[in-house]
């Protein structure tokens, strides 16, 4: 059993995690921008260490409907990573990607078609791939990822999956929030990286911390 305690993380390690978030999200935004062939900008990500009962508040409440795309990680780092955005935002992205208004973003009941789901998986793939490749470059570690697994459900339910993994090592979860979009529509996306305790140490060690 590892002695890692996320609540005892020091400032320097915190900064490094934010920097990883920053670079990862930057890469992801570039990839997204190329995919939809439009300028996409992003804000400096917020990195937060949160208690379990607080996580859902950050993403707009437990019952907000979101799209979660989850990957399991292998290679030098084991664990999982998740990309999450709200349903309206994801419909907006799919509309742009497919070049037509496939979905009404304001309609709670509107559902993704097969085509839409497939586009969404691809968005998840690109964003996460860009994120992981920056992490891999920065740490000089080999990181492989599984195919994307997607779920559309209440934020609380989706977040329970990474929260439980964090629950095995402590009482808090690490959340990286990135806001990105074009000038009219900002889309909030959340990255959650959950290395196993040993892999977490491997990341910090590879960075000389």
């Amino acid at each position, binding site marked *: 059993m590892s002695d890692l305690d996320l609540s005892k993380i020091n400032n320097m390690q915190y900064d490094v995690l934010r920097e990883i978030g920053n670079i990862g999200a930057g890469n992801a935004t570039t990839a997204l921008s190329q995919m939809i062939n439009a300028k996409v900008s992003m804000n400096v990500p917020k990195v937060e260490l949160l208690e379990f009962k607080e996580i859902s508040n950050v993403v707009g409440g437990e019952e907000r409907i979101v799209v979660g795309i989850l990957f*399991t990680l292998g290679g030098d780092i084991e664990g999982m990573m998740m990309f999450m955005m709200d349903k309206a935002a994801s419909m907006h992205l799919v509309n742009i990607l497919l070049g037509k208004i496939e979905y009404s973003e304001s309609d709670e009941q509107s559902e993704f078609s097969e085509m839409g789901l497939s586009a969404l998986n691809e968005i998840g793939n690109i964003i996460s791939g860009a994120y992981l490749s920056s992490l891999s470059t920065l740490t000089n570690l080999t990181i492989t990822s599984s195919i994307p697994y997607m779920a559309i459900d209440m934020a*609380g*339910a*989706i977040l*329970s999956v990474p929260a439980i993994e964090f629950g095995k090592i402590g009482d808090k979860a690490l959340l990286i929030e990135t806001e990105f979009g074009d000038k009219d529509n900002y889309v909030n996306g959340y990255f959650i990286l959950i290395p196993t305790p040993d892999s977490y140490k491997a990341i910090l060690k590879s960075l000389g911390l």
Partner: protein
Amino acid sequence: MNNLIKVGMADANVCKPPDVITTLGLGSCVGIVLYDPSVKIAGLVHIMLPDSTKILNNSNKYKFADTGIDMLIEEMSRLGASKRKLVAKIAGGAQMFAFNNNLEMMRIGDRNVEATKEKLKKLGIPILAEDTGENYGRTIEFDPETGLMTVKSFGRDLKIL
């Protein structure tokens, strides 16, 4: 005026009429409602993991099925509930992502439900109703006045158990 008492992840609370108690967006976690119908006292704990003895960092007792249920019973007793009159209703334990490999990590919902049932059996607390497993999230709300639990899910009919 009746209040809605909210219970977060790895948290618990107790409740008496006219208040109702709820936990929102249960995924692989399990929501366990304990109820003493004779005094209409209810308690709800939102557990994340099956077994506190398997985890080193176990300072939050509400995180686990075994210690969470024990703690909840203690709190309910303090309020006047009788341990031997308790009944249970449980929900949650879904598998949110359809993984094609059967990794231990991915079966956490099932294991949470199993551990909950085992613990309740050991304590002799009967489970009157459950809505567990599957692959979707649930919001539950329990009314100690009626003893009924409603289960809300995205894109599904409301269930009353």
